[in-house]
């Protein structure tokens, strides 16, 4: 693996920034030059948010263009659909199996796309798309507000990047969550990683 670009997308308040901070820290730990980019301010307050993390021997642009993301972590299903063209054809997309209804949907003016449509759109870009039960797994640990899907998703991702030691990931996670929730988050990470155990993908060989 010589370089890697990660796109993260979700809804303001879901922990997109925490997840991208972890990815940046892991990249630095592995000896890469790293850049990370996100937008604050108006992007919060329940709106769509994206974050970019790039690892390379030398990173120039902090941004990822369409078709340039090797990995796409979608923390919400509609956001996966919204940004899928950012993924390199054949890249890896992990989707948190979780719905946050936009106002136009909850007020009945728009329809939320069904799973079948989401899966079919994603698979037209890559054979390597996987749904992760991020929130369900996090909730199984008993504290839905302390552990969120973001860490589960990172655990799932770690399964697909085999050459990074799991300890490197866990250290980056533990350093970025409140101390009292560090163990809980480690368990969430491991649940996410284990949930992908049977999944095989050749996505990295094309990177």
């Amino acid at each position, binding site marked *: 693996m010589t370089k890697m670009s990660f796109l993260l997308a979700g809804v303001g308040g879901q922990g997109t920034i925490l997840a991208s901070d972890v990815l940046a820290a892991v990249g630095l730990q592995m000896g890469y030059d790293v850049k*990370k980019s996100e937008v604050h301010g108006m992007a919060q307050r329940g709106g769509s948010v994206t974050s970019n993390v790039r690892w390379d021997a030398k990173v120039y642009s902090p941004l990822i263009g369409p078709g340039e993301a090797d990995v796409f972590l979608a923390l919400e299903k509609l956001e996966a659909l919204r940004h899928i063209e950012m993924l390199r054809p054949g890249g890896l997309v992990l989707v948190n199996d979780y719905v946050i209804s936009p106002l136009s949907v909850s007020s009945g003016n728009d329809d939320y796309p069904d799973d079948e*449509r989401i899966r079919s759109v994603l698979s037209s870009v890559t054979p390597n798309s996987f749904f992760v039960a991020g929130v369900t797994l996090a909730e199984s640990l008993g504290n839905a507000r302390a552990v969120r899907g973001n860490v589960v998703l990172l655990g799932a991702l770690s399964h697909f990047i085999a050459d990074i030691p799991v300890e490197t990931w866990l250290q980056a996670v533990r350093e970025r969550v409140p101390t009292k929730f560090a163990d809980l988050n480690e368990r969430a990470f491991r649940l996410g990683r284990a949930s992908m155990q049977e999944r095989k993908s050749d996505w990295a060989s094309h990177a």
Partner: protein
Amino acid sequence: MVRRFLSGNEAVAWGAWESGVRVAAAYPGTPSTEILETLAPMPNVYAEWCPNEKVALDVAVGAAYAGSRAMAVMKHVGLNVAADSFFYASMTGMQAGLVIVNADDPFMHSSQNEQDNRRYCKFARVPCLEPSDSQEARDLVGVALELSEQFDTPVMLRLTTRLSHSSAVVELLGTRPPERVQAPAYHLDTTKYVMVPGNARRRHPVIEERIAKLAEYAETFRFNRMELKDTALGIVTNGVAYQYAREVFPEASILRLGMTYPVPQKLLREFAAKVERLVVIEELDPFLEEEIRLLGIPVEGKVSAAAGGRGKSIFPICGELDQQIVRESAIKAELLPASARVPVVRPEKGALPPRPPILCPGCPHRGVFYVTNKLKLVVNGDIGCYTLGFLPPLGAPHTCGCMGASIGVAHGVAKAGIVERNVAVLGDSTFFHTGMPALLNVAWNRGNTVTIILDNRTTAMTGHQENPGTGHTLQGAETVQVELEALARALGIQRVHTVDSYNLKQVEAALQDCLNANEPSVVIARRECALMPEARKSWMPLRVDEERCNGCGLCFRVGCPAVVKSDVLDAKTGKPKARLDALLCTGCEICAQVCARKAILTRAQLTEAEEA
């Protein structure tokens, strides 16, 4: 040497601390806010939020007059507010270094307009430095202060959103120059610091000479960097655009300007002579391009009709650049072959429900707009979270221009003879920022504008900064808590109501009273932002009584993300009943007050049911 992974904003704070900035002042504004937030907890530095950017710049100027290195920080439109001070500061110069950190917002991620503040530098004869990454953001603060002292001028450090909010590894010293034992000497020089016409006429030639000397200095400035490679194409670039240029054109020759005003004329001529085709890649205005063209050098980039240009641009004048935009523009202009294109699959997705930023669940502004809608009022809005109410279903405010505009606009509408009642709506921090003179104007000029101050006890939009009403300073000191009621009265308003934003009846009664009176009035709608730590402690999700709900849909009109349609249809109406999302609902009870059938159980009802 310490290595840290820092955003551009954090790097600027470190640069300020390491180069001995003693006084820093700002008004929060995306994308610049984190600079002072990062600096404030550092030792031996004084940092404050000011009511607005003009005050912040004056504070920094005063500190620099008094011999201490100083920094003022603002977003691009903040410099519009501080422009008066920017110009006199250029005229007077100062005793110690003054850096004005200005963050432009290409693409208007969080702003009302795009503007290229390099124009201000040329306008006021102030040098402009532009970093291309976090390391340079840190380094150029110190350089700016040295230049400021060497040339007796304020210096602008210009950032953009992308630079402010992207992170990279930065090497830091981790130390700060030793503190002075004695206070710095304070030299009063009225010929320099009193800008009456006689003195000002003597100063103007001085600053014209100064900018000429700076242009000479720019020729060897080490952050103006020539990277000579293939000479078929030469690119002049600046800021974060350099990164896109390097990524898209790894083999081209590049002249990266770290000082974009004044430009190094000889260096530009030298570079232009070495390359076959010269283009400029810069965001927003064709500023460098115009400077190059003024030298008589043929150059391509973008065409500005505003500057009398004709023909086609290679790169867009609007919005932000990225490598994709640079690459596609270059392919179109035959700077690159079509084979340079990155393969992209753009699947047919159909229309997707949009997800714009919205008022949060429990936001105290929501109920106020519900009432203004009920009373069919035209709402002149302002800059803050409440602007987000403009989308359906609330659909208010109806105008929003810039900080403090609401009151003056509403007053002007009334003076134009419009009979529909207009109200002005602005937040507490925005009222302190520029709302106060406008309210004074309404009182003085016998207006009848109703001004609603949404007092959520914080500066919410930018992430909960202190303001003059909160009783705390940026560095956490307890201080006077300015009372909005007394302030409104002091500004000449006699009819002042204070209501709880969560109490719709109270809000409506107060507004009705103001509308019935033909005089200027103020309604202070007070309730702490629902995201404040104290407010979070009292969150309590409400519940819909499914038996009572008949799916009438009234509660959906408050536009709360926690109020959603349930899967259960009402047997009679066939419409979906309402449901409250327990993870989102804070228990503000706005929807419960709106419900005609009392189907949404209040906190009291739920507590009672639990106890029973």
